[in-house]
């Protein structure tokens, strides 16, 4: 495995050098040397993997820091004996974010190399079966979302898993998933719904160009009205989710990371194709 001691800066310079070599080969006498360019493309690939890995690691570190700082600030402000429902859900949401970020960051390994998961991708269990059988009803419910509902739903367009962070609990939007899975051409462009970005995730997106390159749909949705926000069993469930979810994340990661890395590198695809344009 490529040593992690080779920093992103070295990888970046190697990428530049490699691209320059490929560019120069097009004008050198005797035509393009297939063998040499193939070897240069291997260096390019290796450098790219290291560079992306370092970038992911940097993103996670920054996110984790921000989450932790947010939680700390909120804890300082909160009176633990008299939690407002809305504040509680914010705290739980932030804590869940922090745990998720650390969980994902913690389980990433050298072997996963360039294939870090989307930091905003969460796994959860369904807290309750969704009362709404069809995706459209979610959309319809959008307009009538309650003011005291604080719910953020993230649809990952690659995996088509909808994750809802509601009042501090994570939910997997089963129906939305089912609906998407039914149409498996699940990755067809028709599945992508354009909605406005929420303020929460936009901060994350501003952090990195890679995350900005991802296609991510966010929408605010209705909350489930019957959840007991102070139910500690839900918190323990959350912990067990992440505990058991590590292996799942790792196994799932290999697929997701391929998808994620492909997305992340979508902007770089032009020059990778140029390499083989003989």
């Amino acid at each position, binding site marked *: 495995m490529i040593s992690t001691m080779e920093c992103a800066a070295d990888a970046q310079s190697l990428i530049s050098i490699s691209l320059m070599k490929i560019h120069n080969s097009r004008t050198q*006498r005797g035509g393009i040397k*297939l*063998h040499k360019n193939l070897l240069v493309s291997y*260096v390019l690939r290796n450098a790219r993997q290291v560079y992306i890995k370092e970038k992911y690691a940097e993103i996670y570190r920054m996110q984790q820091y921000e989450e932790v700082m947010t939680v700390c600030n909120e804890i300082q402000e909160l009176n633990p004996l008299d939690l407002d429902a809305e504040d509680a859900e914010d705290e739980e949401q932030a804590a869940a974010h922090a745990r998720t970020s650390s969980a994902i960051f913690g389980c990433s390994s050298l072997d996963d190399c360039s294939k870090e998961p989307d930091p905003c991708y969460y796994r959860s269990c369904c807290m309750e079966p969704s009362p709404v059988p069809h995706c459209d009803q979610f959309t319809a419910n959008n307009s009538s979302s309650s003011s005291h509902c604080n719910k953020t739903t993230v649809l990952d367009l690659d995996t088509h898993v909808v994750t809802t962070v509601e009042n501090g609990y994570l939910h997997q939007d089963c129906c939305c998933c089912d609906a998407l899975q039914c149409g498996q051409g699940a990755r067809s462009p028709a599945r992508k719904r354009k909605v406005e970005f929420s303020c929460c995730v936009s901060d994350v997106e501003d952090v990195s160009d890679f995350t900005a390159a991802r296609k991510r749909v966010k929408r605010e949705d209705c909350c489930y009205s019957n959840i007991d926000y102070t139910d500690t069993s839900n918190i323990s469930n959350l912990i067990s989710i992440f505990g058991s979810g590590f292996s799942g994340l790792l196994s799932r990661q290999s697929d997701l990371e391929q998808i994620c890395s492909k997305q992340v590198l979508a902007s770089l695809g032009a020059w990778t194709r140029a390499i083989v344009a003989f």
Partner: protein
Amino acid sequence: MKCFSRYLPYLFRPPSTILSSTCHTEADIISTVEFNSSGELLATGDKGGRVVVFQREQESKSQPQRRGEYNVYSTFQSHEPEFDYLKSLEIEEKINKIKWLPQQNAAYFLLSTNDKTVKLWKISERDKRPEGYNLKDDDGRIRDPSTITSLRVPVLQPMDLMVEATARRVFSNAHMYHINSISVNSDYQTYISTDDLRVNLWNLEITDRSFNIVDIKPANMEELTEVITSAEFHPQQCHTFAYSSSKGSIRLCDMREAALCDKHCKYFEEPEDPSTRSFFSEIISSISDVKFSHNGRYLMTRDYLTVKVWDLQMENKPLETYQVHDYLRGKLCSLYENDCIFDKFECVWNGSDSVIMTGSYNNFFRMFDRNTKRDVTLEASRENSKPRAILKPRKVCVGGKRRKDEISVDSLDFSKKILHTTWHPHENIIAVAATNNLYIFQDKVN
């Protein structure tokens, strides 16, 4: 290694009016060297498309100290620059490889190739010329038949020895990619030419047709992961050949199995050591040369840092591995920047397959004795190569305190590289090409 520490060096340069001792043109850079099967002739090719053939002097009792010196025998322009109008590509005239055919009569035959075209050259001597033609003068002018009053029989008159080279066959339009090697079959009727993705089989007599026997081109070029880097026929088995790849593997193929030898009968590859993985692992594992031993039992391969000897009966790992210049492992990044990491070093066996030799940087070349496991580093340079001088072993200091005669890694001159070497088939005579200079070393005679 007694014999290799006592060498009588000669220094040759291809004849060129532009050439000087301190500077040279790009065209004068030697790109290949090859002894013929008897060792009497030594051919060199350069980037300018020229072939220079040296011939060994006959032994002379009156001048025993000049035993076996090599002198220029013939010089000719083998390939010219061409232009592919369809692809708008210039085809370099650089001679990539020369292979001698076995001598069957008074003339000598060799194959020379550039990136696209293989040519068969006949090199013959002429020491007589006909004189006394009726229809033309001695200087070649046509005579007016009306002025001829008597007839005479032309006779052969002795003349100064002239060596002439004529192109007898041109094998062209068979390679879409750059030819990297040619190899003559032991049947002396066929040969193979190899480019990045294909191996073609030719008959020496037929120029308008060749047979593709290996094709690794993928249906989608974006799926390309490896290319062929070299190929060679087995020295005795006319049906067997081997080709090496950029991934560090060697495939042995039997032409009797199928017309298309995409399916190998043996596959030689050593698993990569994960602890040495780096950005440049793929580059340094690419094989630049493959050579069968004279006895046909072993294969030798050269990658960027090592030479490996493989037993044809053992595919999973090499029999022997020799580190050529492992001190470069920590400098791969800078070698990548200056393109030196793409240098293709060759390797050669001695006549008895007991010693192997390959080149390095700073005009160093290395020899490894397979029996004693001893190795030596020698340098080909003008300063160290006075006539009848003994080559002094050199050493590269890899760290710590540098001794007086050692050279540090940082002081190595990477522009001086020995890529091409050849060994006399029977005697301890080696030819080493250092940029535009050809050094010939032989065992000292007391």
